[in-house]
């Protein structure tokens, strides 16, 4: 424990006992049985990183294909699979889980507790996510890759126009990843509500935690929509229901409503955690609390609420009633307000603070520039007449990459530079970091800015090639060069991580002089996170109201955590958590067998139900003891 945090050093014997209680057991089986939120979040981070790299390779393949007119590097069929798997990977296997992984790692540390609320469920969530990702990617290699786009519109994705199993793979991948996303959301909500350090009342929550909490509620209300949609799509395809079949009273637009009721909040599910990271980076870099705490919290919550009123703006070209379209135009423009409020708060913080231009802050500045462009094109496409012109063109491709890469990836990289020392105990090189940022910023704009013009010139998205006479080749070549620069910047980032892990400078507990509780423990944190649960009396507990208090009296020989009240975080009771177990893995395997078997035979359901029941019995076979 650092001196400045004022935590008392407990006797060494206690630390040994705490470690023995909370440690992940040795060996492969122990590793598979781990329920430590840090271990699981790290797995998520590495796995999402690998999928991100895979999705990036697919993007490069598309850029190679489009660099010249009438290329036959990828045929039309393979191209369809490549853009579908690229989009699905980036949305479902990278963007959402990587944000949740940051939350699963950081939220318990920021709250001053020892694990997430349901440790075994957390382990199960990761394994289910992994199974879904492996399903999608292995299908690509056996020519079973989904090929109907990441939003898989019917009737194209229905039984009539997409025979075979490709779309079923997509639909089940959705089920896997959404189960995992919902579990992570529940973990974050319950941990935040009930497991905060005493004194950390709701009005003192770190802004990053507020962002993760808002995101988790969005997940809770949005993800069921896509599970239902993909579920009934699978039913239409596998057992002959007629949800989307107009000949029997079904309706193709029902798919779009259900999908975008999830799909629009999805964008904010990716973006809002990034806003939380920006707040952390801005506070730490300008060495003062972010201006307008209440305004930012209200903006986060407003964004979460408004995000559910936007879905129809993806459907302006489907001929909906004009009044409805006007409503959704208004809502789409309104959501720019809370985003704007936050941007002004951050600018004010930097203005009156003492900013240090470190790599995390560079990425935040990059975010402010690119996301503003993405936001502006968003206001443009929110207008129905404009949207009718650019729908399904490269303008939309440019817009969505500006919002997602600009709005989420820039802050994420900033966040990785900020928290890497906490995760690993090593610092990344600032010099390589600056180069990484510069290449990334230039490469990103070079790749995606020309796509605005290509879209306005009429280039459609998702078509594998174009004719020379269109004159689209030079801008496409600029984009391809930009994509290579992006790849180079990623290589630099990987080199930076490898260099730091092999022998980067030790980080110490708190290399940035930061404000929140995760910096009050060692880097990387011990299995029990904190030797003593801290008592916090400020929103920036390491800056104000020092020294921190501490909690004593928690048992050390079992995994006891402190449960506190929802609003004021008053101590309520002690609670012993379950330890490592292989049953989450077993249940995940049973789930995977069930979902994959269902693609091929309806018998998958009853067989799977039995497997799942057995795994659940194993999981709960030993009622947990209290004392």
């Amino acid at each position, binding site marked *: 424990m650092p001196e400045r945090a004022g935590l008392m050093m407990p006797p060494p014997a206690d630390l040994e006992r705490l470690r023995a209680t909370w440690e992940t057991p040795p060996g492969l089986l122990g590793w598979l049985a781990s329920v430590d939120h840090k271990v699981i979040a790290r797995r998520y981070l590495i796995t999402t990183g690998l999928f991100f790299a895979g999705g990036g390779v697919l993007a490069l393949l598309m850029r190679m294909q489009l660099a010249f007119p009438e290329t036959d590097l990828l045929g039309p069929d393979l191209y369809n699979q490549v853009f579908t798997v690229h989009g699905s990977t980036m949305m479902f296997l990278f963007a959402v889980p990587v944000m949740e992984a940051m939350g699963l790692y950081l939220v318990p540390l920021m709250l001053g507790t020892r694990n997430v609320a349901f440790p075994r469920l957390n382990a199960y969530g990761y394994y289910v996510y992994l199974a879904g990702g492996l399903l999608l990617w292995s299908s690509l290699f056996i020519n079973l890759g989904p090929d109907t786009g990441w939003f898989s519109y019917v009737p194209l994705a229905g039984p009539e126009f997409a025979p075979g199993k490709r779309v079923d793979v997509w639909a089940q991948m959705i089920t896997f990843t959404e189960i995992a996303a919902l579990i992570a959301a529940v973990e974050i909500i319950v941990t935040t509500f009930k497991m905060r350090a005493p004194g950390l009342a709701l009005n003192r929550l770190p802004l990053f935690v507020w962002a993760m909490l808002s995101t988790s509620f969005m997940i809770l209300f949005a993800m069921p929509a896509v599970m239902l949609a993909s579920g009934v799509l699978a039913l239409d395809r596998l057992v002959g229901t007629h949800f989307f079949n107009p000949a029997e009273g079904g309706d193709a637009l029902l798919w779009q409503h259900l999908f975008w009721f999830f799909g629009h909040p999805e964008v904010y599910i990716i973006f809002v955690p990034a806003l939380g990271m920006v707040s952390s980076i801005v506070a730490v870099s300008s060495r003062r609390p972010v201006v307008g705490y209440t305004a930012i919290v209200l903006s986060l919550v407003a964004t979460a609420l408004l995000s559910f009123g936007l879905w129809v703006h993806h459907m302006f070209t489907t001929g909906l009633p004009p009044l409805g379209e006007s409503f959704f135009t208004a809502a789409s423009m309104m959501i720019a307000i809370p985003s704007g409020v936050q941007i002004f708060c951050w600018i004010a913080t930097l203005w009156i603070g003492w900013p240090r231009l470190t790599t995390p802050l560079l990425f935040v500045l990059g975010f402010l520039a690119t996301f503003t462009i993405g936001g502006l094109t968003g206001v443009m496409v929110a207008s129905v007449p404009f949207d009718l012109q650019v729908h399904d063109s490269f303008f939309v491709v440019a817009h969505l990459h500006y919002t997602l890469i600009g709005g989420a990836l820039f802050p994420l990289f900033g966040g990785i530079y900020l928290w890497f020392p906490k995760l690993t105990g090593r610092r990344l090189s600032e010099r390589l970091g600056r180069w990484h940022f510069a290449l990334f910023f230039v490469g990103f704009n070079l790749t995606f800015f020309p796509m605005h013009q290509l879209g306005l010139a009429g280039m459609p998205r998702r078509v594998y090639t174009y004719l020379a006479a269109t004159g689209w080749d030079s801008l496409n070549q600029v984009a391809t060069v930009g994509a290579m620069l992006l790849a180079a910047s990623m290589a630099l980032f990987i080199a930076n991580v490898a260099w730091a892990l092999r022998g980067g400078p030790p980080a110490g507990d708190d290399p940035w002089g930061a404000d929140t509780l995760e910096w009050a423990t060692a880097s990387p944190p011990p299995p029990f996170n904190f030797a003593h649960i801290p008592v916090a009396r400020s929103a920036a507990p390491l800056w104000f109201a020092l020294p921190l208090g501490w909690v004593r009296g928690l048992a050390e020989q079992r995994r006891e955590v402190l449960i506190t009240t929802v609003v004021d975080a008053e101590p309520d009771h002690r*609670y012993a958590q379950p330890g490592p177990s292989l049953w989450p893995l077993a249940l995940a395997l049973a789930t995977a067998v069930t979902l994959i078997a269902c693609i091929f035979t309806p018998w998958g359901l009853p067989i799977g139900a039995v497997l799942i029941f057995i795994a659940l019995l194993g999981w709960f076979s030993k009622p947990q003891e209290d004392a």
Partner: protein
Amino acid sequence: MNAAQEIDAGALDTYGFGARGIVWWGVMAFIAIETVMLGLTAAAYGYLYLNAPEWPPGRLLPAWHWPTINLALLLASLVPMVWTARTARRFEERGVAIGLLICCALGAASCLIRPLEFRALNTAWDRNAYSSVVWTLLGLHTTHLVAEVVETIVITIWFLRGARAPRTWVDVGDNALYWYFIVGAWVPVYGLIVWFPRLVG
């Protein structure tokens, strides 16, 4: 600078009933997810209804007897379940054991009636969009019903085998919470499946 504050947690309970405990919050989150799931399925039902010239197609109305009997059964099960949950808070072994056994019996009966309710829909799932959505509504609710009844049976078996740690008593209450949701959700789903077509006919 304030003096460091020390809080002694040693005297605190090792369990908390209801909203004090984390499992209660986990169950609430799960209820929220499933409410959205059922709500959106109901919305899909409404969407398909608005597009249909006749509802249900061919006026093949679902029979009302079995679904209504199950409604009565589920509503009746609330009495022993509420009672069991309250008794658990007082750590009364006999009361909880009896209450759980009654709930298991009512729950099992409700599950056994379900196949008859599917038949009462008077249509196969693959006939048209209407039949697909009513089968899905009933199927979703049935999945939760069966899962909850199985869970109640497992808890009952533990309890009868002598698991008496304070947390077992808390589990009885948290399990009841999910039971209330199953019963509460059945009221609108039942109304939508059985009475909505009659109201609009």
